């Protein structure tokens, strides 16, 4: 009990010290967040980041030392989950858990939940900045600018926005060289012999298009499980899936190609499967252009030889 109390006192002392130092790194910013609210961030000395893309941007902005907590989806950089407090899965947050990391600003993806907890958190004195969940180059720039302004790192943010924009320009140039777009299918996972595919409006759909592929599941809305027969009809030439842990890679590949429907597609016949890290591929953080480029290189091996990725 005593240790606990002195710990709390120490934390309070640290907070006030850091708080006093905060204006130096640009406090008092008013931002309009993804939910359209005006949020005033007075002190960004202790940041809690919820959402894989949000955490990635905070690290890219060089605010790592100010980051006190992340959520379970913050898997890049890998040290985030090792070094920072983990408030759990972003759709199953706990009000008190979030408050307990003693952040001075909460940066949360619009996908955070449950709604009641988000409502409680928005009502606290700690500014809660909702970061929109958009899957487009412009969306990434918007996210970076919002987060950069909220934590007072605008200059760094602008540098990243320029970098991201340049990456997308060079991606577009590479995409222009594609003569015959590949028909691709994104498979989120396989359950009970059915593949859950990424349809319209998903991050998977967006990245496939950016990489110059045709999403054969564009008629489906959202991530949906598809019966075998439907997969045959879509006739993808290549399947894109997320790489999980290194040990289960082989298993996942085997499982995908044991599905009769997938076996008989052109992708199944040619055994063309592209595995990429989930957050890298679908996170739509600063690395999205690079991810799209990597995906493009795997989709079009011939082009990749002529146009090596930097």
């Amino acid at each position, binding site marked *: 009990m005593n240790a606990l109390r002195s710990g709390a006192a120490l934390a309070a002392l640290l907070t006030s010290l850091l708080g006093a130092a905060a204006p130096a790194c640009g406090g008092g910013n008013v931002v309009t967040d993804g939910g359209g609210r005006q949020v005033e961030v007075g002190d960004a000395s202790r940041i809690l980041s919820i959402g894989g893309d949000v955490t990635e941007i905070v690290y890219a902005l060089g605010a790592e030392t100010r980051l006190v907590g992340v959520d379970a989806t913050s898997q890049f950089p890998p040290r985030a989950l090792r070094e920072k407090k983990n408030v759990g899965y972003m759709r199953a947050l706990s*009000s*008190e858990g979030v*408050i307990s990391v003693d952040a001075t600003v909460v940066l949360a993806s619009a996908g955070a939940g*449950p709604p009641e907890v988000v409502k409680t958190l928005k009502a606290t004195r700690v500014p809660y900045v909702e970061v929109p969940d958009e899957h487009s180059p412009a969306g990434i720039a918007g996210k970076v600018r919002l987060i950069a302004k909220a934590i007072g790192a605008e200059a760094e943010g602008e540098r990243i926005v320029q970098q991201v924009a340049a990456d997308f320009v060079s991606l577009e140039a590479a995409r222009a060289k594609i003569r015959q777009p590949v028909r691709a299918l994104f498979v989120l996972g396989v359950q009970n012999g059915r593949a859950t595919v990424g349809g319209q409006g998903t991050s998977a759909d967006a990245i496939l298009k950016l990489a110059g592929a045709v999403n054969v599941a564009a008629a489906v809305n959202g991530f949906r499980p598809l019966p075998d027969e439907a997969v045959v009809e879509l006739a993808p030439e290549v399947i894109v899936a997320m790489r999980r842990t290194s040990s289960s890679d082989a298993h996942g590949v085997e499982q995908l190609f044991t599905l009769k429907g997938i076996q008989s597609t052109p992708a199944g016949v040619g055994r063309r499967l592209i595995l990429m890290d989930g957050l890298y591929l679908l996170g739509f953080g600063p690395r999205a252009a690079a991810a799209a480029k990597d995906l493009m290189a795997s989709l079009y091996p011939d082009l990749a030889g002529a146009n090596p990725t930097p």
Partner: protein
Amino acid sequence: MTAAVPMDERARRPLRNAPRAATGGQLIVWAALLLAAAAVMSLSIGSTGITLDALPRVITAWITGRTDASVAREQLVLLDIRLPRLLLGLFVGAGLAVSGAMMQGLFRNPLADPGLVGVSAGAALAAVATIAFGNGLAAVWTKIMGVYALPFSAFAGGVATTAILVMIVARQGQLATATLLLAGIALGALSTALMGLIAFASDDRELRDLTLWMLGSLSGASWPKVVAVLPFALLVGLGLPRLVRALNGLLLGEAEAFHLGVDVERMKRQIILITAAAVGAAVAVAGIVGFVGIIVPHLVRLVAGPDHRIVLPASALLGGALVLTADVAARMALRPAELPLGVVMALIGAPIFLHLVVKRGMGAG
């Protein structure tokens, strides 16, 4: 074996009445003490490390209206997060335990439990439908009912399931364990299948939300939710005492109860209504939390016998204590993240349930 206990008990009543009554009184006192301890724990343990030490400061600040940042934080955690959570946990635990006790009395079967016989699933189906269609097909309903939409839907789902169950079991004449359980399992499976259908129509995010919701949790506790369950809590609290005599009469059998002057059919309807109110509201605020309704009344009967004057209040107190304790475990195990309450409750409840089945030969009758 336990199924036979009521009869034995009644037969030996003149002999056993006095000591049992004493044990019953003691049990209620102990249960109340346990509940008080669990309530204090629930208020003073959490990931922020704020304890009840802060309470005087918070109350002073609340009365004077003068708060600084640190007190505001303590006030938020104690009054707006932990206190509604305590009240909802209390309601969920007491409601589920009492529903279990009432259903076991109604069906004269120690295995009857809102979770096992599908009433929770029926309530959950209605709640899931409300969540999924709340912005589309059922928009009018959610608009009119506001915060009450979810508990009322779940309540209706609970009433419907229990009523169907009673109809099926009553057709068989004798209230057989097998019929009750199998009918309940079938109804539960049907509800689950329909929930699956709704889940299939949902997108990936709604799906994850529904899954998390079904695991059960009190983490979304808030004052509006407390207000939403209040009418149900009142209904259960006021209705229970009127059912004690009927439930005790039913211990002997429906015909015997009738001869004791119990209006059996009317009482049955009231029991169904109150059970559904308690289960529905509990499911609406916390999702599916199992085993409370079966282990708590059972432990109470083991100690104090089948008299509902003891079983109902003691179950309510112990059920509240059990859920509050499980909730503290759920929020502390992985802090600052949280385990789902339903998972913790199943981890605690399932072994106890198995132990009862093996040791006591429960349900053998």
